[in-house]
């Protein structure tokens, strides 16, 4: 079998346009040389039941032959303070912080360090293999001491730690005290004695929090022994500071009031949306966060009086570090490509081949704002692709097999992801310490957003591209990121905007832009399901990443911690759009109702669909036809995740349901936010909310919205060579939406709602 993992890579930037220069970064395993070419993907689904993998090579970009080399990835988030002068001089100091370790797994982890691994000079404060507070201290001349309280801290419990170091060969003291006491369990410990180490001037290394430095052979600095857990209010003071003063310094928000006693007092509550780490002490020892640790998380003093880090910043002074956080692989560039100015927009890849190997490294070429090349824009759901990137759910989540009702199939790429955790996680995954993953970045190989067996969003979306090409319909590709950045200006260039199978992750700017487009005469086709579901954060400080917080409702593979639903990137409440008053029904007429992973089903037309003003939708489709009782995903057009119409949740009063599902069956299960009290009637055999509705409505200034409410819709398009009623309906609506004549949909909704909800 051809390997797709012996060459891995990423393109920087992931999203670009004609004329741009992009950097291609590769890592090869036992491959002396490779060939690379640029291809435009037409269908990324190798499934032999469909059109199969289809792409065209871009001949206007020269092929590249290169020498394979391996490039390392160093996950683990930490803080580095590069200008460490005042800290290097501080050889007699006291370190203190509140810490909340989340993974005591027999691995040593560092909390603070100023350490040169080459000379073994400096110090590293952390937890030893037993989970006890420990200090390693070396003079760089062979004298090294490792000291420990030998009593483990408690996991998921706040402890106050102090480490006093007289680096002139004097006394060392380590203490930890758990915030709570548990009779029978050691909750405090200390060690005191002499280490016999004279530090001298400390090495010219960055000071680090939550890790310590190591060097690659190339000289590149990276971090090891990364900490799992929260650190809150780390302080460094002169060794002479009294114990109660040190404790007060940690609790204080006014470090300068402690005068010369203070060397550094970092306040993580400042500049939460950025990489900046603020020092409110006298030396302004500013730091930088690396690999995107979780900020805007509850501190040791969070009391539940606010869930908003903007409103109560003093209670959000912690950072949650993870040894498996990854923002940027930092790989060197193997070659650069200048994209032709006139390159058409689309889903692209660098196709890298070597004997026995073929890898598609994805990137997207967007139509230029101001220069549309077609009347139709297809939205590449780049935020969604990132949210799912490198998902480990099949083998890390206990419930996956129940969700999908079959034994999990693990492809070569997924088996690779299982073993190579350094490639980082999707927002569906949990970190090694069990906490949910907030961030996903494209500065790393994205094994789920390329041709292959993982189809759930990226691959499924390309079936629309293949169908449009067969139809001869010209289209532009724009990305979620383009909509976020350029908003209505970009969208308004297009007569029709198509969001495809699963546009699940939307920022506020994207939501506003799409709504404004609809309200200003735009024609929006939503050919998917479970769209517009999670509020998503974008950031100028982390341009390659998205952020999401799962919060406390919605279908989730993990649950957020209390008080941590607010997006760190933007400060907005995260979680479901529905929870902040913007249920998907408001935007599209339908919104998420159910998962249906075991098999898909079909729709049947409603009585309303026979109205004359809606006849165009069903031209060539019989009144009693089953719509979409075929398809590549579960054998139907209505499946995987499906959406329903609901006037209470905001389906526009002029929206009309023209078709609805039948025979959803017991595999259709209501989503979590769709029921309030526990019931056994969560499946489609008993619960009528488990359904997909196709709906249409007119919007102001001649606009319109057409929604199908099912992820599986686009993967039914290729059935029978494209001669089928899903394709016919899609083409009918597209043709009508391209016609500038205003759409008149008579206001005669068939209220098929449930009235007062489902609680008595």
């Amino acid at each position, binding site marked *: *079998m051809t390997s797709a993992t012996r060459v891995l890579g990423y393109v920087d930037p992931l999203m670009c346009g004609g004329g741009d220069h992009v950097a291609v970064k590769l890592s090869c395993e036992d491959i002396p040389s490779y060939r690379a070419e640029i291809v435009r993907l037409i269908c990324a689904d*190798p*499934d*032999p039941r469909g059109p199969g993998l289809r792409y065209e090579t871009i001949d206007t970009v020269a092929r590249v032959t290169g020498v394979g080399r391996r490039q390392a990835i160093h996950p683990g988030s930490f803080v580095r303070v590069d200008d460490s002068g005042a800290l290097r001089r501080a050889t007699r100091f006291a370190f203190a912080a509140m810490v909340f370790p989340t993974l005591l797994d027999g691995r040593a982890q560092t909390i603070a360090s100023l350490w040169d691994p080459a000379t073994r000079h400096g110090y590293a404060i952390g937890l030893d293999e037993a989970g006890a507070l420990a200090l390693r201290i070396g003079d760089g001349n062979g004298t090294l001491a490792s000291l420990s309280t030998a009593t483990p801290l408690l996991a998921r419990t706040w402890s106050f730690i102090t480490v006093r170091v007289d680096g002139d060969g004097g006394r060392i003291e380590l203490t930890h005290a758990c915030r709570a006491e548990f009779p029978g369990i050691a909750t405090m410990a200390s060690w005191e004695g002499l280490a016999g180490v004279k530090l001298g001037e400390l090495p010219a290394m960055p000071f680090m929090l939550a890790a310590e430095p190591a060097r690659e052979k190339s000289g590149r600095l990276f971090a090891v022994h990364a900490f799992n857990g929260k650190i809150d209010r780390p302080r460094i003071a002169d060794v002479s500071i009294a114990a109660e003063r040190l404790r007060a310094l940690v609790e204080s928000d006014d470090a300068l009031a402690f005068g010369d006693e203070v060397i550094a007092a970092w306040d993580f509550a400042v500049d939460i949306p950025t990489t900046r780490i603020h020092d409110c002490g006298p030396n302004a020892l500013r730091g930088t966060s690396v690999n995107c640790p979780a900020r805007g998380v509850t501190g040791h003093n969070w009391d539940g009086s606010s869930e908003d880090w903007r409103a109560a910043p003093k209670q959000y002074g912690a950072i949650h570090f993870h040894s498996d956080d990854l923002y940027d692989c930092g790989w060197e560039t193997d070659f650069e490509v200048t994209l032709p100015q006139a390159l058409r927009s689309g889903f692209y890849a660098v196709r890298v081949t070597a004997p026995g190997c073929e890898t598609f490294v994805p990137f997207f070429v967007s139509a230029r704002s101001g220069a549309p090349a077609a009347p139709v824009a297809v939205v590449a759901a780049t935020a969604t692709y990132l949210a799912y990137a490198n998902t480990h759910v*099949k*083998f*890390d*989540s*206990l*419930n996956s*097999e*129940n969700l999908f*009702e*079959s*034994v*999990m*199939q*693990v*492809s*070569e790429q997924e*088996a690779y992801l*299982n*073993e190579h*955790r350094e490639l980082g996680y999707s927002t569906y995954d949990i970190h*090694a310490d*069990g*906490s*949910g993953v907030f961030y996903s970045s494209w500065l790393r190989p994205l094994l789920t957003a390329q041709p292959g*067996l993982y189809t759930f969003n990226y691959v499924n979306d390309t079936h629309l591209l293949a169908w449009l090409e067969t139809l001869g319909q010209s289209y532009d590709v724009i990305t979620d990121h383009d909509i976020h950045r350029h908003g209505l200006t970009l969208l308004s260039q297009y007569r029709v905007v198509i969001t495809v199978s699963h546009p699940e992750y939307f920022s506020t700017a994207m939501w506003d832009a799409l709504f404004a487009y609809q309200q200003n005469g735009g024609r929006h086709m939503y050919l998917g399901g479970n769209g517009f579901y999670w509020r998503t954060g974008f950031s100028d400080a982390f341009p390659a990443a998205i952020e999401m917080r799962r919060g406390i409702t919605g279908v989730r593979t*993990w*649950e*957020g*911690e209390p008080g941590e639903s607010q997006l760190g990137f933007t400060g907005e409440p995260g979680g479901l759009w529905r929870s902040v008053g913007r249920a998907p029904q408001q935007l599209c007429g339908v919104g998420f109702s159910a998962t249906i992973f*075991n*098999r898909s089903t079909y729709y049947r037309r409603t009585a309303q669909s026979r109205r004359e003003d809606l006849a165009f939708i069903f031209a060539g489709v019989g009144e009693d036809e089953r719509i979409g009782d075929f398809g590549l995903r579960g054998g139907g057009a209505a499946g995987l995740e499906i959406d329903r119409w609901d006037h209470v949740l905001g389906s526009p009063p002029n929206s009309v349901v023209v078709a609805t599902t039948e025979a959803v*069956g*017991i*595999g259709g299960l209501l989503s979590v936010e769709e029921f309030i009290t526990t019931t056994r009637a969560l499946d489609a055999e008993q619960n009528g909310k488990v359904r997909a509705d196709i709906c249409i409505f007119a919007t102001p200034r001649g606009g319109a919205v057409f929604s199908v409410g099912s992820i599986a819709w686009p993967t039914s398009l290729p059935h029978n060579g494209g001669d089928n009623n899903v394709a016919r309906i899609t083409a009918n609506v597209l043709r009508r939406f391209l016609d500038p004549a205003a759409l008149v949909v008579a206001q005669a909704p068939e209220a098929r709602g449930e009235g007062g909800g489902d609680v008595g």
Partner: protein
Amino acid sequence: MQTYDPAMSIWPVSADRLDLAREFKANVRGPYSEDLRRLLYRMRTGPLAGKYVLLVIEPYRQWAIGRLGSHRGDPIARVDNRVFTSLDGAEWAVFELRWRDLTGQVLEL
């Protein structure tokens, strides 16, 4: 925070319920009777350590049974040399293994 726990699946499996095994073999993709649903939920709900998966040997054509290791990230080990040319066949083979694991008895129909 909510976490998954294998204890969320406790339905007792009886080696006497060969009727459920026959039902599954005859109709691997369901829909299933109520008791078979309970049995499958029990079988599918972990724990993750040692959980069975299907390794894709040749896409769309060949699968083998693998097991997750005892720790996250451990390589997935094949349980035997069998290669399945149908997903239903592989699914049934996993059912047999789980029957043996849960009842201590080899499934013989």
